[in-house]
């Protein structure tokens, strides 16, 4: 699998926002999970300004957008995120779903629950939170939306949480645990998804079961 440049600093993901420990509103009640460490974890800094080539957005076959068999009782239009598989499913009905390869939260930054898309934004701006600035002082304080922005081409804000489904300028992070709880898709995929789902779409986030406890 292709890897991008690994920087020396332990990086915070791009959607930690201003919260050290994500605090959920009671209305959405997602649960933050302490998952066991995995080999697919990736320590990687954001690369503001880096514009991915079309070639680098050619994913490994299993992470390419595709229609798959998917049996569920959830109605068509629902988004289901299987964090452990690094897949996001858009339920189509008739035992099928459109499946996208994603990057997910690092261990300790994973969560599960039911939320709804509260807001949608094309080419979102990026404001690294103070914790990130402290650790990576060279980061810009503000970066206007556009190619090269770590949030990518589209963002869908999940309920009242700090989490989003968004694009990325780092296609090689798809299939990895890299973020601080957000779900990232390559820009062509996040644009495709964005155009298919309205505000109010239900998003169900699943986690692998843990043997602990």
């Amino acid at each position, binding site marked *: 699998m292709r890897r991008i440049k690994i920087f020396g600093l332990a990086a915070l993901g791009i959607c930690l926002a201003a919260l050290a420990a994500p605090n959920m509103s009671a209305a959405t009640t997602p649960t933050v999970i302490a998952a*066991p460490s995995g080999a697919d974890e990736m320590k990687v800094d954001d690369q503001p300004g880096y514009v991915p080539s079309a070639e680098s957005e050619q994913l490994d076959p299993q992470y390419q957008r*595709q*229609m*798959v*068999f998917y049996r569920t009782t959830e109605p068509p239009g629902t988004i289901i995120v299987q964090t452990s598989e690094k897949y996001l499913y858009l339920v189509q009905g008739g035992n099928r779903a459109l499946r996208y390869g994603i990057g997910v939260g690092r261990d300790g930054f994973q969560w599960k629950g039911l939320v709804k898309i509260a807001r949608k934004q094309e080419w979102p701006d990026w404001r690294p939170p103070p914790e990130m600035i402290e650790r990576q002082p060279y980061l810009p304080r503000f970066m206007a939306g556009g190619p090269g922005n770590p949030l990518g081409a589209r963002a869908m804000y999940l309920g009242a949480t700090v989490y989003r489904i968004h694009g990325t300028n780092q296609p090689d992070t798809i299939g990895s645990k890299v973020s601080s709880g957000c779900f990232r898709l390559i820009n062509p995929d996040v644009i495709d998804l964005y155009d298919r789902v309205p505000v109010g779409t239900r998003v169900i986030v699943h986690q692998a079961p*843990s*043997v602990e406890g």
Partner: protein
Amino acid sequence: MSIRKHTSATLLCASLLSIMAGAACNGAAAQTLKAVKDRGELICGVSHGLPGFAAPDSSGAWSGIDVDYCRAVAAAVFHDPEKVRFMPLGVEERFDVLKSGKIDVLAHNSTWTMSRETDFGLTFVGVNYYDGQGFLVHRSPEIASALELDGAKVCVQKGTTTIDNLEDYFKSNNLKYEAIGESSQDDARKDYEAGKCNVLTSDVSQLYALRLQMVNPRDHVILPDVISKEPLGLAVRQDDTQWAEIVKWVDFALINAEELGISSKNVDEAMKSTKPAVRRLMGLDGDFGPKMGLSSDWAANAIRAVGNYGEIYERDVGSKSKLGIPRGLNELWNLGGIQYAPPIR
């Protein structure tokens, strides 16, 4: 797909009966576990070479889903996944060989059907791969479902149930089609590549294997629709229920392990779990293993050796293999598929 041919098993057995007074036809009655332990190895009947299911590499090392299931049974019995001998068998002979007692388990990408149990005195213990007939088409954004194949020219192998399923599916969905029959899968693929048809149909696992042989595999997609039932599973003799239980629960243990989050990488962690379902599977609570004639850590040994069902799938036929078949039907029941194992309790 099933080949439309009647094997002469019953006849063969009857003639053997008259010669050998029944000995050859009863097989090893109800003593398989003891025989396996005394022998010091499991004998597994497998395919001569079907990538993803059972195939030897150039050094003679076997791999595939069926192979891993044999190793899992060996690990459950002996604590050692290497104590298994693979006996490659042809399609025509495989059920007779199992019945004769020359092998302990048949793991030969065999479709579980009623007649195979009743005609040969066999029992299928579970399904390690849900296969079924599907469709391969040229990659295009327009076609996402087999229901959009109206007017298609379909390449198909003749003399199999595949062509019947094709007819049933298109007729029942009011779709027109033209079948272009060939005597082999490979010829059907060549016809498709030569443009004599725009759809290729076979069992989904076959379509992925055929796609690998195409000039540019990425130009073709296999639709998610599955139109027939080809549950591939492991078979044992009907007359030994203890042995059938063992092979069956090894299968269920691998599936339950995935559902519970137990993998080859965290077996040791799972051995310290306080979760009741994990503890029972690991043999920490209850005496499930001893009641089958095995040690209490039978399942833990199997999982440590070959991984849980998901690990086996991805390694042999899924995203970590050349075939790259999506989980589909073989995803766990609570993750979008139909793989489901009764609980251990």
